[in-house]
């Protein structure tokens, strides 16, 4: 009896009905990769959080203008990367963004709104270019894009939330200290980028 069942089982496996499901590879990989990518590198994380910190220090309307500007210009940088436009010194640009934003938070710099947006936008291009050219093989491009825009925006929101401590004197000091840490980390990233060729 067991032998008969085993034979039947083997036969059933050997002559399977055709599966109708279709494999569309990459959806889950794309979204998860996109969500993970901005948080996988400390240089990106610190720069994104610093954007939120600086926005919180500057107050309205910069608190929302900077996080609106960054993703849009970053996506433009990503688009440049996707269509094959080469940008020199991507890693150097990302390291410099951490230094510049860290210094801005540390010194509580208050440039005009336009100047702040231009500065943020300039550095966003480097971050976007780095993201845009690093799609994992087999991943879905659109979902990867959705994932990394959401992750980047969430990091900004995280920075803004932390930056709300700016209303208390002790919080203000803590924010400036955080800016100093970001700037110092940026110097380390710059050193690494220069040592590694800076591309």
């Amino acid at each position, binding site marked *: 009896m067991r032998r008969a069942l085993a034979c039947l089982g083997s036969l059933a496996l050997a002559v399977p009905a055709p599966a109708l499901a279709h494999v569309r590879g990459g959806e889950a990989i794309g979204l998860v990769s996109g969500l993970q990518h901005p948080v996988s590198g400390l240089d990106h994380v610190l720069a994104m959080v610093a954007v939120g910190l600086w926005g919180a220090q500057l107050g309205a309307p910069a608190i*929302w203008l900077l996080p*609106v*500007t960054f*993703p849009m210009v970053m996506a433009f940088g*990503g*688009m440049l990367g996707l269509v094959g436009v080469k940008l020199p010194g991507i890693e150097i640009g990302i390291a410099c963004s951490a230094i510049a934003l860290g210094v801005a938070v540390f010194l509580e710099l208050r440039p005009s709104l336009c100047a702040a947006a231009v500065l943020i936008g300039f550095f966003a291009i480097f971050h976007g270019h780095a993201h845009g050219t690093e799609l994992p093989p087999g991943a879905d*491009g*659109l979902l990867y894009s959705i994932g990394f*825009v959401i992750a980047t925006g969430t990091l900004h929101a995280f920075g803004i939330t932390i930056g709300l401590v700016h209303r208390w004197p002790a919080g203000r000091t803590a924010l400036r200290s955080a800016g100093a840490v970001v700037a110092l980390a940026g110097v380390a990233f710059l050193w690494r980028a220069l040592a590694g060729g800076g591309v």
Partner: protein
Amino acid sequence: MRRPSRLVPAALALVLMLALAPPANAHLMTTGFGPFYDGLTHLFLTPEDLLQVIAIALLAGLRGARSGRFAVFALPAAWLAGNVAGALALPHGAPFVVTAAVTIALGALVAVGAPLPPEAVAGLAIAVGLLDGARNGGDLATARASVLVAIGAACALFVTLSLLGGQVVSIRAPWARVVVRVGGSWIAAIGLLMFGWSLRGV
């Protein structure tokens, strides 16, 4: 003699673009609950369509209840009309690059809080409905899908617009409206990347 409207060449260009577009690769998921539910889930498995619907809901919601009411009915109706046109005459729908450009534009309008009148919001909803409907209509016709799939998808559009648009209309706190506009900037950013992907041919 009356001068021809500028809309005529634009409409001709749109029809030509739809007719010559390469085949889309949209997919229809089988839920096991029948074609109506297959259509209902289709919107949520087609991120390029869903992004545009979210953008229209946010835009209409920001512009008030009247805009919201227009959009809630205009978009699903236009989607169904586009679907029929796509199934009958425009098998391939608009190219992905057009979808990306529309997504950028809609996201940017939300991000800047464009002060559009309700009629303009309704016009945008109709345009989006026709474009997306035509693209999906061609795919559904190729897949020999039931008409219930299209009805299910239109219901999904209606429900999504109603729920999301209604939430945004009810927002009063300035910071919450800013959050909605930030959402628009995310949609525009994703649209820019879609544009890059479409130019790259992925």
